[in-house]
């Protein structure tokens, strides 16, 4: 009886293995040793795309998006070969300094992006997609000073919009996270008084400064969720109206929810698009002193950029790589890691924009390519950066993306009083044609469509359904291919339903197959 059961279990397992092997791709490592990494979920969408891309070269790069803090700690204790993080080692968090790892390491710039404020708000039963906020209001929202959507400060930034008297539910990260660190570092730098007051009320010692753990006061209506997936998933649930969260722009694109237009120092409300992030990052001070802080960023210039296109909450994340063989990190692993780094610094950056990030500027790529040579066992190459096709590069070394980034439309200027008539507020005239009969990809303020995040200018292609991204320079629109394009309201069309039913049937067949076999066997006896 016992043996029979074991036989069945084995049969069941082998069946599922056969099924699995059909779906999995043939990934064979030619001469690359797999490397393992962990860390930032902010950058995870980009890393996941890149590591899928390098499978064709036989590279296996495993990555667990467990949060920046976890990545740094795992790298410190030597359990992973590389880590990714939004903040470097050595910052003071909650009065405790994050110590440097004992193994030798270096920072590589990973990918740039904007921390977006994704929200779920309906006005008159339709999803509102054109919310504009200034920094102080945003800070007050996340510190519990402003608690209702119809607050005067919000109404002032959104003239003519009938905001509902609905409670604001800030959704924050419950785990240690680099997104939290980036967001709190911005609040601590720009609005230290409001932030410190909140921190004090939450039982932290002040000055609070940057922290990876968002302090939450119970009973204030905050919701904490783990991981970027968790917060974006929570906000994107249809019933969770009135929620707002901070998350990488990529996740908002993926779920098809709108993000806040944030007021910059030049007085314009801007979105965290690739070009706006690139413009803002021109003001980032890069630490070029050799040593353990080489290539880390000082962002105060970014927060206060005077360019009218700059998105204030911009930053880039790091890959932390070992520079000496130690523990489980070998020369062979160094070779894999090095080639992966070469790939993403050069070719990989082309995809950054489509994924909701911003490509690294040329100075960071050049410095990063030099840093790669420090990895032990690397097949050092002299990559020609002009062949990378990085959209930010130009022959004279300046940041092309920042140069050609469209200016924000006049009606996104603070204090603009004119009528908002243009059905496409983002069209700043980069030479493209605008299809007036577009299928609702671009939202004139408050429409029900969830895809209203593309008003960065450029051409609207009516053939693209769902989230799309338009290149400002070429005027070409493409669907966001790496993201799952799911409309927020369930499955669209009959095909989806049929597929779901088929899946459910398959699932039941799989579940019932073991007991059924058992019955058959009993009958035969």
């Amino acid at each position, binding site marked *: 009886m016992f043996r029979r059961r074991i036989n069945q279990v084995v049969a069941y397992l082998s069946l599922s293995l056969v099924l699995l092997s059909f779906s999995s791709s043939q990934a064979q490592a030619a001469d690359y040793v797999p490397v393992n990494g962990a860390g930032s979920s902010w950058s995870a969408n980009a890393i996941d795309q890149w590591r899928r891309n390098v499978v064709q070269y036989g590279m296996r790069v495993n990555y667990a998006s467990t949060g920046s803090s976890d990545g740094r700690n795992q790298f410190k204790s030597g359990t992973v070969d590389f880590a990714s993080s939004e903040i470097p080692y050595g910052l003071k968090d909650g009065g405790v300094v994050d110590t440097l790892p004992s193994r030798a390491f270096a920072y590589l710039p990973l990918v740039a992006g904007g921390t977006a404020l994704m929200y779920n708000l309906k006005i008159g039963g339709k999803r509102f997609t054109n919310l504009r906020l200034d920094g102080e209001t945003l800070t007050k929202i996340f510190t519990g000073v402003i608690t209702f959507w119809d607050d005067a400060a919000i109404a002032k930034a959104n003239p003519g919009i009938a905001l509902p008297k609905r409670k604001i539910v800030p959704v924050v990260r419950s785990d240690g996270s680099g997104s939290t660190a980036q967001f709190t570092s911005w609040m601590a730098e720009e609005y230290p008084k409001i932030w410190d007051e909140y921190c004090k009320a939450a039982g932290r010692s002040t000055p609070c400064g940057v922290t990876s753990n968002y302090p939450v006061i119970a*009973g204030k209506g905050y919701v904490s969720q783990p991981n970027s997936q968790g917060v974006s998933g929570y906000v994107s649930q249809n*019933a*969770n109206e009135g929620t707002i969260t901070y998350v990488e722009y990529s996740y908002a694109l993926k779920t098809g929810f709108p993000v806040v237009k944030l007021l910059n120092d030049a007085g314009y409300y801007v979105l965290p698009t690739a070009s706006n992030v690139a413009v803002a990052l021109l003001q980032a001070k890069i630490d070029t002193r050799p040593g353990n802080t080489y290539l880390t960023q000082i962002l105060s210039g970014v927060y206060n950029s005077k360019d009218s296109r700059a998105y204030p909450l911009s930053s880039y994340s790091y890959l932390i790589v070992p520079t000496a063989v130690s523990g489980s990190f070998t020369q062979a692993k160094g070779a894999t890691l090095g080639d992966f780094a070469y790939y993403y610094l050069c070719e990989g950056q082309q995809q950054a924009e489509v994924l909701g990030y911003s490509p690294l500027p040329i100075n960071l790529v050049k410095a990063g390519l030099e840093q790669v040579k420090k990895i032990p066992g690397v097949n050092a190459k002299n990559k020609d950066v002009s062949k990378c096709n990085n959209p930010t590069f130009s022959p004279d070394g300046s940041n092309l993306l920042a140069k050609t980034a469209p200016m924000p439309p006049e009606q996104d200027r603070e204090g603009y009083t004119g009528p908002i008539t243009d059905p496409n507020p983002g069209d700043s005239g980069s030479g493209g044609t605008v299809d007036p009969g577009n299928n609702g990809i671009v939202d004139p303020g408050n429409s029900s469509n969830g895809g209203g995040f593309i008003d960065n200018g450029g051409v609207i292609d009516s053939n693209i359904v769902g989230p799309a991204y338009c290149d400002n320079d070429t005027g070409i629109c493409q669907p966001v291919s790496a993201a799952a394009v799911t409309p927020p309201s369930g499955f669209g069309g009959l095909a989806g339903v049929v597929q779901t039913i088929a899946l459910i049937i398959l699932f039941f067949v799989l579940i019932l197959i073991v007991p059924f076999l058992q019955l058959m066997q009993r009958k035969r006896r």
Partner: protein
Amino acid sequence: MANIIIGMRLGLSPRNSKQSSTSNESQSQALAISSDSPRLIKHVYDAQDQIFRTVMRAAGSSVLVIMAMVGIFLALRASEALGKVGLGFFTIQAWEPDSGNFGIAAVIAGTVIIAVIAVSIAVPFSLGTALYISEYAPRRIKKFLITLVDLMAAIPSVVFGLWGFFYLQNEITPVAKWISQNFGWIPFLSVQGSDPNDPLTSNTIFTSSSLIAGIVVALMITPIVTSVMREVFSQAPIGEREAALGLGSTHWGMVRNVVLTFGKGGIIGATMLGLGRALGETIAVYMIISPVFVIQPRILENGANSVSSLIALRYGEATQMGMSALMAAGLALFILTLIVNFVASSIVARSRSGASS
């Protein structure tokens, strides 16, 4: 003996088997002392027996040693944190280890609340399922049903968590809303910050609550509770069953007076085992709850907590003190679970001896 078999089948901690072997030993000792003649009984084992005894003894004691080492490890790592806050560790609700202001009052309370909800949902279900399978189901489909219930235990907890987060949460919020509006006068069913007269109240106040986490955990402990109960029911003595039926009892009367009476201990034991598992459930709870660090007895309201999900959330970025504090929380959970499981297994064991007499 039955105890051992069940223990192995369910993959319980081998503490059960260890316990029963010690009780066997003490029984034989008691026999030796209380017998009339003062003659010393000398056991003579041959080589095979001797080897078998040694191996079994080593296996049994290694489990105890490992358990003890886990406890000692936790206690050692926790000592730094415990030394810093002292007895406040049991009364403070906040969790700010780096500021030296932390305790497990809120976290343990949250853990117990979620576990109690889970048990009170899972036990009625399990009781019905177990009774049906052991007493009413036709022989042909009995095996099939048992396998189905066992399969339910094979679903990974992260799947339960995803389902709870993306599906159940949306479906349960209207129910929670209705309960709070109609039964809000019961303190633990009230919800602060929801106004039934305001159409613009957010649903979010009903999400990420102890109730939703409890329902998901209930589904996860149902299989084990059902298995234990079914096993106990099927051991209700056949003589008494037939006697009851022979005296003219209905089927239900027989079940009530024989099966349930003999299985009472087993039901309690299974409940406690389920409670023990519910206390330690991590990932599903981690994905659903929105942690708050106050004792929050309103189960329909957003905000809950549990020790294991706290550890899963915070170990990643913990500093040295933070780690020590998490170890201390882990130690508290370890001891709590140990007590619950110990009580459960002793009740189950006692009910067996009663049934066989």
